């Protein structure tokens, strides 16, 4: 594969970086990243990965664009209201960068389809941009069982957090959070609110992790939870332990099949 003149110019700021170079840019163009949820986190992640020249981007989302999404889901435009989010996302990416092949899955992930979606293009890296715990645990377990790296993230109000799982290199989401909270226990995102930029900051960090993983450079957020408080403008990295008896990634793991948890909640009240 050789670059066209347009590609050399488009990616020139990458190519000049010694950590990327021509070789790294080729890796990006050959890479495949699956983004589950085309919302607050997935939108900026998808846009930066598209701009970076990630060759294949999968978008998973069953929803249509709503006016209330546009305060933070920057891949969707006012004219897209009512359109499936994956279609709107695909159109924006196509306009941004013709090098990117966008694969759309207009569905919610469940135990019935997630492995098929991950295997559809044999994605290299998965980004969890979902808003609910059943999906977050499902993505974690599916990535552990299929040995795929993924980036977890959550945002609420002025808070965000993210961690990266790489098989065999650190704890998974379930090591730390065990099981989803009961569905009716906490207020939903809609009730709690979120500052629009939170997804931009945390989703862009998720995209950074995907790019670093593909390029094999730097230190990933494996075994670390990065938390962000926008009001205090405080980033913290919390070192996480590897849990030997984790039910899905531990030495004698009991979870061998995916679980569909009930309910849709999205946050715990922060103190």
């Amino acid at each position, binding site marked *: 594969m050789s670059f066209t003149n347009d590609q050399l110019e488009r990616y020139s700021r990458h190519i000049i970086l010694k950590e990327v170079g021509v070789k790294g840019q080729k890796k990006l163009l050959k890479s495949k990243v699956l983004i*589950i*949820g*085309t*919302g*607050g*986190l*997935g939108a900026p992640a998808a846009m930066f990965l598209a701009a970076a020249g990630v060759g294949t981007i999968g978008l998973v*989302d069953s*929803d249509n664009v709503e006016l209330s999404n546009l305060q933070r889901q920057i891949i969707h435009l006012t004219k897209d209201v009512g359109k499936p*989010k994956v279609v709107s996302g695909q159109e924006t990416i196509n306009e941004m960068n013709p090098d990117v092949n966008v694969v759309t899955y207009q569905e919610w992930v469940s135990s019935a389809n997630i492995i098929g979606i991950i295997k559809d293009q044999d994605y290299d890296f998965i980004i*969890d*941009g*979902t*808003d*609910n*715990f059943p999906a*977050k645990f499902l993505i974690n377990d599916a990535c552990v069982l299929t040995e795929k790296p993924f980036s977890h*993230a*959550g*945002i*609420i109000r002025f*808070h*965000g*957090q993210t961690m990266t799982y790489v098989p065999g290199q650190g704890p998974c989401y379930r*090591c*730390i*959070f*065990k099981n*989803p*909270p009961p569905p009716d*226990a*906490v207020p939903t*995102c*809609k009730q709690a609110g*979120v500052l629009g930029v*939170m*997804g931009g900051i945390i*989703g862009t960090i998720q995209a950074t992790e995907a790019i670093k993983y593909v390029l094999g450079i730097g230190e990933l957020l494996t075994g670390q*939870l990065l938390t962000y408080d926008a009001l205090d403008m405080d980033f*913290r990295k*919390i*070192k*996480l*332990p590897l*849990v030997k008896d984790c039910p899905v990634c531990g030495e004698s793991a009991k979870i061998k099949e995916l679980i569909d948890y009930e309910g849709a*909640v*999205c*946050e*715990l*009240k*922060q*103190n």
Partner: protein
Amino acid sequence: MKIIVNGNEVVLDKEVVVKELLDKQKVSMQQYVTVQVYDDIISRDDFEKIALKEGDSVEFLYFMGGGAQ
């Protein structure tokens, strides 16, 4: 005694168990907080049993959704 909670120093007038620390720090919905002391994730069943010691480093980790929707 002094312990570190989420990176900040907290001064306690006596030894407390995890549950008492959560109360003192006014953490609501405690059944949904993951508590890490150094390299151990503390089981919720042990919140009333595990006592914190001088200098312990404690993290409260929260469920956080958000994203699509």
